[in-house]
């Protein structure tokens, strides 16, 4: 039976060979066992580089912004979250659907390398692979088996759409969403909400004090797809370039506001943050409020929706004194 990586390789090679697409975005391995960055495949022979392993978390969709001009059609492997990024770009009119062929990859959750490392302190790990719900970890002192569910990335533990929501081809059978994800979705938000006001401010101040202003959270985000971000402009200068905590708070508040009603909960912002700032607690707060005030809305499911802040109903409630 063909392995999952081979399936991806076959899909990509065929699409390239048949001229259906001129580039395929998927995942490849690098030197370290936990690395599986996005690969840009343009010839069928290189399709053999493609892999599907516990670490193929990276979202290839945003790369379409840079590449769709140069190619007639691009093939993209999309997990559930990646497919919602496609809808995000379609809804924002940053991409045309006919420019892409979507190879859907049902995803059973990606593995958190840090959790694996922590499980084997002092041991050298050379490879990790997944077989159903088990992780096989090759170490310098033999192969160990771990339950996959316990070592998922945090963001995958609250994933509501493990299957692509839009695709042209499906690599394999769809998977079931993890049980309990709906309950888990706003747990962290509720925990912050329950803090006292001053405690909340101190909490966020501590988090954002670590912010480097590297803008990785923004740059990785498919909802942050402006040609030139407002924070990169010199005139008017919306925030200072220097790393000032107040400017950082300004950036983080407005960043969250700009993705309000548009964030599709891929959690990449939080994953890429070098300072481990819990950004999803901010994004999800906005989702929670929008749901409560203006009705349930899940971004990235239908590119024809109007985003909640781009529409209104006359009878909307207000989160402030309307007397």
């Amino acid at each position, binding site marked *: 039976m063909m392995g999952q990586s081979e399936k991806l390789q076959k899909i990509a090679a065929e699409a390239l060979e048949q001229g259906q697409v001129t580039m395929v975005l998927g995942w490849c391995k690098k030197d370290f066992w936990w690395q599986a960055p996005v690969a840009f495949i343009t010839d069928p022979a290189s399709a053999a580089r493609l892999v599907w392993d516990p670490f193929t978390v990276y979202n290839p969709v945003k790369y379409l912004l840079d590449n769709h*001009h140069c190619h007639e059609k691009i093939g993209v492997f999309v997990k559930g979250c990646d497919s919602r990024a496609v809808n995000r770009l379609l809804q924002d009119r940053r991409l045309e659907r006919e420019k892409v062929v979507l190879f859907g990859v049902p995803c059973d959750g990606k593995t958190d390398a840090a959790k694996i490392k922590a499980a084997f302190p002092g041991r050298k790990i050379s490879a990790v692979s997944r077989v159903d719900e088990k992780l096989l970890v090759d170490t310098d002192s033999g192969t160990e088996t771990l339950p996959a569910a316990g070592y998922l990335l945090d963001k995958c533990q609250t994933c509501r759409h493990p299957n692509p929501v839009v695709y042209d081809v499906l690599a394999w059978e769809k998977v079931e969403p993890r049980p309990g994800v709906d309950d888990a979705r706003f747990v962290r938000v509720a925990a912050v909400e329950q803090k006292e006001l001053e405690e909340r401010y101190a909490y966020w101040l501590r988090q954002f004090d670590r912010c480097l202003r590297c803008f990785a959270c923004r740059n990785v985000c498919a909802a942050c797809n*402006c*040609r*030139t971000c*407002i924070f990169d*402009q010199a005139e008017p200068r919306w925030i200072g370039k220097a790393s000032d905590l107040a400017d950082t708070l300004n950036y983080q508040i407005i960043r969250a506001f700009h993705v309000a009603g548009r964030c599709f909960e891929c959690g990449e912002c939080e994953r890429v943050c070098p300072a481990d700032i819990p950004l999803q607690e901010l994004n999800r707060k906005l989702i929670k409020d929008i749901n409560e005030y203006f009705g349930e809305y899940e971004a990235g499911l239908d590119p024809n929706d109007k985003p909640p802040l*781009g529409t209104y109903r006359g009878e909307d409630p207000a989160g402030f004194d309307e007397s």
Partner: protein
Amino acid sequence: MKRIGVFLCWCGSNIAATVDIEETMAAARKMPGVVYVDHNKYTCSEIGQAMIREAIAAHRLDRVVIGSCSPRMHENTFRKTVEAAGLNPFYLEIANIREQCSWVHKDKLTATEKAISLIRTAVAKAARSEPLFSTEMSIERRALVIGGGIAGIQAALDIADAGFEVDLVEKEPSIGGRMAQLDKTFPTLDCSACILTPKMVDVAQHGNINLITYSEVEKVEGFVGNFTVTIRNRARSVDMEKCTGCGDCYAKCPSKVDSEFEMGLAKRRAIYTPFPQAVPNKPAIDRANCRYFTSGKCKVCQKVCPAGAIDYEQQDQLVEKKYGAIVVATGFDTHKLDNYGEYAYGKHPDVITSLEFERLVNASGPTGGKILRPSNGQPPKNVAFIQCVGSRDKAKGNPYCAKICCMYTAKHAILLSEKVPGANAFVFYIDVRTPGKDYEEFYNRAYEECGATYIRGNVSKVFPDGDKLVVRSVDALSGALVELVVDMVVLATSVDARADARELAQKLSITTNAYNFFNEAHPKLRPVETQTAGVFLAGACQGPKDIPDTVAQASAAAVKVVSLLNKESLLSNPTVAEVDIKLCSGDMSCLAVCPYGAIAEKFIEERHGREIRKRRVAEVNTALCQGCGACTVACRPGAINLKGFTNEQILAEVDAICL
């Protein structure tokens, strides 16, 4: 660096008494970019304006800040001033140091501090102002008048006489409105119908007036000079082309319902014209009460119609029309008396409202002009008139004075004495208000010549006693308790805004006051205009008004419309949105929030190395853009900006305030 001139206005003592002008000037001199500071007792006067013009020339000023009254007051005046001195009119900024400073603060120290801050903010904004230019827009040289009462009729006739086409939209099957219901009019006692009916006929026959009855305004889009209005022509069920107005249909119609025109004192048919002099004199079927429409059987009118004009299949039609100007003349409703149980209205047939009384007096009314008690058809001997019913009552009614009741009650007393010789009129009042030409004399006539007894006391209770009514009050002047036994009680009901006034205001983007009367742009200086350019007011929709005032306002509104439609073209609002295509991502978030459809997508071509790429960007139609700025916030990269209120300017204002 800009060369900014700051001019402070004393406004007599209005500003100078509370804001230390000297100190404010000293502070202004130190503000970045300020090269000249001066002051004047009345900057809006010719002397004050000349001072600004001269200073611009003498000191090569390129931006002007005036600390004075609200920009809503004199912004246009001062824009013209700086324009006359050769500057772009939008190089002017006004710091509102009167309405928002000297008039609301008492302490001179802190008020001065605030005035300085307001000047600093205006200087910061002015330093970032750009020259703005209007573009010329065509005008749709037609007017819409909403409401076919005397206000609408007068406005329509005046506009039409000036040579412009007018559409007159009326909700009822006929024009005429409230005035058509009245018998005589004060203070001359002309017959209402005698003076109104000819005007109604004029409307019908005027080549420039297009009468659209049984219709309502559904939607209003566009802006001054270029409104697009959707009108709902309600299904009349009568083909207006075929109908000859013979009246056979309503003579035979078997359904009888209370006549609205007769205030329920008489019946009309389901197919009806509201009154005999109706214009157009063609009936409509009231489908809610029509046997055919409610039970599917009848069709009597169709059978008897000699012209074959009855059309049960008619549907409401939505018609879209373009106008350059709109006159709103939708009139008033009479106050509902649900809160006034003490007057026994609705419980006893001889307690009637003033408008019902008008119908009783009217020769074409239900009694043929005889004043008869509804209970027994006998003429009343004693009649009590109660004023201020629902007016001047902040507890249960309207806190305002309805303005017309004193006069019409005097008229009623006079009419009673004429129509029922020997009858006694008792008028219960709080105050009698008669400002108006010949009004006091008219009121004097009521009690001097016609024998009306005026009692200064509000009636506390009316209750039946046998076939009579007991009216209980006190004569506050003598201190005597009053208990009258009368045959009829007439309630001078207050004037309300139309029940659907707010809905219409929202469609027109005009505002209302707390009681839903439409707001004029300025209570004294712009009494017939609204805050929405091109929309004008006439009559009681703006506030309680009698016929002379209504007609005067209607003609005034007509003049405003005519002067607007007479223009070759209009200058567009230059404070419109503008797209920086460098920054525009083309995601069209702006388009989603634009209420005017003023944003469209366009594709531009850009060179990337050797290849040419097409890219979507937003484009603003400056003729349609009204400058609200909603798009600027929807645009995440800040690619769309609002001229005159740019991001740079507002951020500079924030910085200047918080400094």
